[in-house]
């Protein structure tokens, strides 16, 4: 597999060099690259509206399967309207005496003409209302939550109807639930305390896994590659770890047993920092992995259009295909790692006092 990939990469760059030699219109290609880059950037971000695809018809951009999503703003009172009213940022929405404009995925308060004022670094300085919109990511999470709820409630029900034996799709998920319990929760937390954390671990595992998988569909969803989402997940791990921690856990942070007093004082800030760093690493790991996966995959797909010849494009396609297979693995792997590390941190929090001898 690796040899094949190496070979493909080598061929790839050879074709690339050949292709650059024979550019018909370098300026045109430059603009295509820019367009793809913008497209990838746009895809990685959350969006206020949902569509399956877009194309250009003359000077106008047309959208396929466009659905406006609810925009909810808190701006001295609750305001709600459909994101379709923004007309992809071209229109200013008036609510009462305030005007809102969608600019690069964010909503700003503007004047009636929709003027955006920039600072030196070309960042808009307009005031932003508190944006609680049901964006594409929120809708996807709601969908995933509903899917999980019906899926696992069905499994729970199938036990009652089928004499404690899973039926249907539950037969696929039951071993995974058992895996989370027997190979993630119990080895890290211990048999005595694992029960308390099972709901969190199972929910987070399936939630992250399903969202990762949805990110691989052509719907253009990138929920787990969004820092706000991974932050929220890691925050729950952080809170759960520290709110359920026992005396022993805090003793290891503030007054490390079994080391001389100067070391105890030295270790205190390090351990305290560790409390923050552990969940922080969780949120960065999941975010970066999913983000990177999406960038690589979309760039390879974009390359097909840059090459625009049968050899380079088909090679790009093959590479994109191989990367998608790897991403399929990464989707499960990242869910596993997030759950495993959460379980590990819970394990630290409930570890019983043990002898210094070992």
């Amino acid at each position: 597999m690796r040899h094949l990939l190496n070979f493909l990469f080598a061929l790839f760059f050879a074709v690339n060099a050949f292709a650059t030699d024979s550019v018909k219109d370098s300026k045109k290609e430059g603009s295509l690259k820019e367009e793809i880059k913008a497209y990838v950037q746009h895809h990685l971000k959350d969006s206020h509206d949902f569509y399956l695809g877009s194309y250009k018809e003359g000077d106008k951009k047309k959208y396929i399967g466009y659905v406006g999503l609810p925009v909810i703003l808190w701006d001295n009172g609750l305001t709600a309207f459909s994101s379709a009213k923004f007309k992809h940022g071209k229109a200013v929405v008036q609510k009462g005496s305030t005007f809102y404009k969608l600019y690069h995925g964010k909503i700003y308060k503007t004047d009636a003409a929709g003027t955006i004022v920039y600072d030196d670094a070309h960042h808009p300085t307009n005031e932003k209302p508190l944006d609680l919109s049901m964006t594409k990511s929120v809708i996807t999470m709601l969908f995933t939550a509903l899917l999980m709820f019906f899926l696992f409630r069905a499994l729970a029900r199938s036990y009652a109807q089928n004499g404690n034996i899973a039926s249907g799709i539950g037969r696929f998920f039951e071993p995974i639930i058992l895996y989370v319990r027997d190979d993630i929760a119990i080895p890290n937390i211990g048999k005595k305390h694992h029960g308390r954390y099972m709901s969190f671990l199972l929910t987070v595992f399936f939630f992250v896994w399903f969202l990762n998988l949805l990110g691989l569909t052509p719907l253009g969803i990138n929920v787990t590659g969004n820092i706000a989402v991974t932050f929220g997940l890691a925050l729950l791990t952080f809170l759960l770890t520290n709110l359920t921690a026992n005396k022993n856990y805090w003793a290891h942070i503030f007054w490390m047993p079994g080391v001389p007093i100067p070391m105890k004082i030295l270790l205190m800030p390090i351990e305290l920092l560790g409390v923050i760093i552990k969940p922080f690493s969780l949120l960065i790991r999941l975010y970066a992995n999913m983000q990177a996966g999406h960038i690589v995959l979309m760039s390879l797909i974009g390359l097909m259009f840059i090459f625009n010849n049968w050899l380079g494009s088909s090679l790009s396609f093959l590479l994109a295909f191989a990367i998608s297979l790897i991403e399929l693995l990464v989707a499960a792997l990242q869910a596993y790692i997030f759950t495993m590390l959460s379980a590990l941190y819970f394990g630290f929090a409930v570890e019983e006092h043990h002898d210094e001898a070992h």
Partner: protein
Amino acid sequence: MEKLLGEFSFGLFIWQTVIVTALILLLRKFAWKPILNTINDREEGIRSAMASAEEARQEMQNLQADNERILKEARAQRDGLLKEARELRQKMIDDAKEEAKAQSEQLLAQAKEAIEGEKQIAITSLKNEVADLSLQIAESLTKEQLSSDKKQTELVQKLLKEVDLKA
């Protein structure tokens, strides 16, 4: 880092936290608890079934061992009985032989004694007979030769003593 913070959407964070927390609570009530309970019950059931099967097997083995032991004991008992019977038979035969022997010996001794008695009687009567006979002979012999009876008797007695009848 600035880009990361710029990308951070507070609204999305709020939604995410609400959705996940609600999902955890709902699934705990409607899915995870019943599922894990069922799995635990099932595992407990399997474990207890296996334990009872093992117990039954042990019992069976014990029973089999018991049977074997009883059989062995019975065989030993039978062997003992047979041996005893054989010994008893031998003893009875031996006893009978012994008794017969003793009886025959006793009979023999009695017979011998009787014979001895008879013999003594016969000897005595023979002695007397012989004495009488000798006396008669001597009387008839000496009637003509001897004058005195007295001298004749003394002579006969002396002669008779010299005769050893036992011989």
